[in-house]
């Protein structure tokens, strides 16, 4: 079925591929490492990655090579690399597949990144629930250590890189890079105020780079086949390479699909994911995980790359595409996401901590047909006062479902409220803490 070359999922699509070190070496694994360590200068590796146009796959889409370039050049102390495997954005499940099916691809990327930034220690911060994934990674690290790809004096070049798996413990916010660092230091995962950025004051106040699993998994391929090859894939110049999209919701074949960036949503949903699961047409979709605003079928021809999705009023985020069929209540859907954000707000900033609770209570009241027309203004007012007024991007993310559903499906809210008024439930239930 794939009409284009797979990069990240290529190995695991082969029959019988187990993800072991032998299997990975057979497909050319660790060749990039052999050809780089001691042969290409670290600064040149950074240049290669910058030229390839690789952008972070975790959500923000920051150019990876540029991020590495922010590290202080003359700093003598230790530096750290953190692999962000906290994958907790609802709608996203790509990193789990990359780690559990082809762990060595990720490890090779980690060692290459460590070499480029001059770090001797890398921590893989994996979300606590993925016990199987952490076991598979531990085992792969053991194999790679024995084979001399990780540890002291890698392949006789005198370079040291130690990789450790660190399990999180079930907090969505720890996917935010500074919260991840706090959590890795054994504290509550509260995001830090930036600046200073992790590039100068990161883990243990040392220069640190935090990269997503999928970003790191791309590195061996970029090094082996060159930045120009990578930069030609997808929709250059701004969004290069492929992207593993996680399709979920009301489609026939949900799952992970690796496609070049710039493919339309229509093609991804109707050709790869098999279209809608029943004869009901599509009503809405989210293009980039729970933090991305909802879009309508009118946006089906939007190209899935950073710029085009942003121009359509949403964001590419972590690549989790969730599809909803006709008949799904948008108020209910927005409330479900809002309950998630309410549960996961870390509580550091008042607008987010209190606002998410008020949003959930107001939404529940509307859905329970006890709403009032002025609730809609209250919702928008709350959203306006949360977005952009918090330390991290969580505040912007949590208002996205409500703002976008109110924009596209305001009538559904109005209908629910009209029903409430028709049923003469004029005095709403007192709203308490739930």
């Amino acid at each position: 079925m794939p009409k284009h070359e797979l990069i990240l999922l290529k190995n695991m699509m082969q029959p019988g591929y187990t993800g072991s070190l032998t299997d990975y070496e057979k497909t050319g694994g660790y060749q990039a490492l052999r050809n780089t360590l001691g042969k290409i200068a670290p600064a040149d590796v950074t240049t290669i990655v910058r030229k390839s146009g690789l952008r972070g796959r975790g959500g923000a889409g920051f150019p990876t090579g540029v991020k590495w370039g922010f590290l202080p050049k003359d700093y003598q102390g230790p530096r750290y690399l953190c692999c962000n495997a906290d994958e907790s954005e609802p709608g996203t499940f790509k990193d789990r597949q990359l780690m559990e099916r082809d762990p060595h691809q990720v490890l090779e990327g980690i060692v290459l990144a460590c070499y480029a930034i001059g770090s001797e220690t890398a921590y893989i911060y994996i979300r606590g629930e993925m016990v199987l994934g952490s076991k598979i990674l531990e085992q792969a690290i053991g194999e790679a250590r024995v084979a001399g790809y990780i540890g002291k004096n890698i392949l006789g070049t005198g370079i040291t890189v130690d990789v450790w798996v660190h399990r999180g413990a079930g907090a969505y916010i720890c996917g935010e890079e500074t919260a991840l660092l706090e959590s890795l230091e054994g504290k509550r995962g509260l995001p830090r105020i930036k600046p200073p950025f992790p590039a100068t004051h990161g883990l243990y106040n040392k220069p640190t780079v935090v990269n997503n699993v999928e970003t790191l998994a791309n590195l061996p391929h970029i090094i082996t086949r060159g930045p120009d090859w990578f930069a030609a894939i997808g929709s250059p110049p701004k969004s290069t390479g492929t992207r593993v999209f996680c399709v979920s919701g009301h489609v026939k074949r949900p799952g992970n699909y690796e496609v070049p960036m710039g493919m339309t949503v229509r093609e991804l949903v109707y050709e790869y994911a098999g279209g809608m699961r029943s004869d009901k047409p599509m009503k809405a979709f989210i293009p980039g995980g729970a933090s991305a605003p909802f879009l309508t079928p009118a946006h089906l021809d939007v190209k899935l790359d950073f710029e085009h999705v942003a121009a359509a009023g949403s964001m590419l985020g972590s690549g989790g595409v969730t599809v909803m069929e006709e008949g799904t209540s948008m108020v209910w859907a927005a409330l479900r996401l809002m309950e998630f954000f309410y549960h996961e707000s870390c509580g550091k900033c008042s607008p987010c901590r209190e606002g998410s609770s008020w949003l959930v209570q107001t939404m529940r009241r509307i859905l329970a047909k006890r709403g009032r027309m002025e609730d809609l203004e209250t919702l928008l007012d709350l959203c306006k006062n949360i977005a952009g007024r918090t330390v991290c991007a969580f505040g912007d993310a949590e208002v996205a479902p409500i703002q976008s559903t109110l924009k596209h499906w305001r009538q559904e809210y109005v209908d629910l409220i009209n029903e409430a008024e028709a049923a003469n439930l004029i005095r709403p239930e007192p709203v308490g803490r739930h």
Partner: protein
Amino acid sequence: MWSWGSVIGETRAADIRSLAACPLRTYQHQDYGRMTFLEKYKDEIADILSRYPVMRSALIPLLYVAQRDQGYVTESAMQEIAHLLRLTPPQVYETITFYTMFNLKPVGKFHIQVCKSLMCALVGSDTVIEWINLKLGIASGESTADGLFSLSVVECLAACGTGPMMQINEDYYEQLTEGKLDQILADLRSTGTSPLKSGPFMWPEPAPAERDA
């Protein structure tokens, strides 16, 4: 001897060695028989400590060790860990209460966690929760009388394409149906594990025809 290392909690080889000598008897508690928590797991704890340049980083991994021992983190374990890492007990407590995966109270032998976030809810996670409510007679946050099962309704577990799904202890169970759920519960009762749990994740699995292409 006083050093800056002791102030910022730097991991020092001496700490790991002193751990092996079992210096802590202060927090001896019936939970671990005649041994303290630190004595019981001293090798594993020394291994964890050796990974981090600053000791506090070992807090979450150590709490996992404590939770594995009893099914939940006991107060005595928290105090021992605080002592070992040179933290105050509140520093341990503030951390443990931030994260949802640590239990401060005993839970059932099988801790069922069903995802209720939007992506699973679209494909029927609410029905799964109802099934469990009916079959086991427990609501979210409750345990069965025999202490076998506890139910929690949780937020996204990163298996959105294969919902509805649940996690039982360390294993994922995906694409649940009523028959599958019955089978899993029966397996757990009889053997303590179920072959229906997920292996290394890949979805969609490559179909044979696609493999040839």
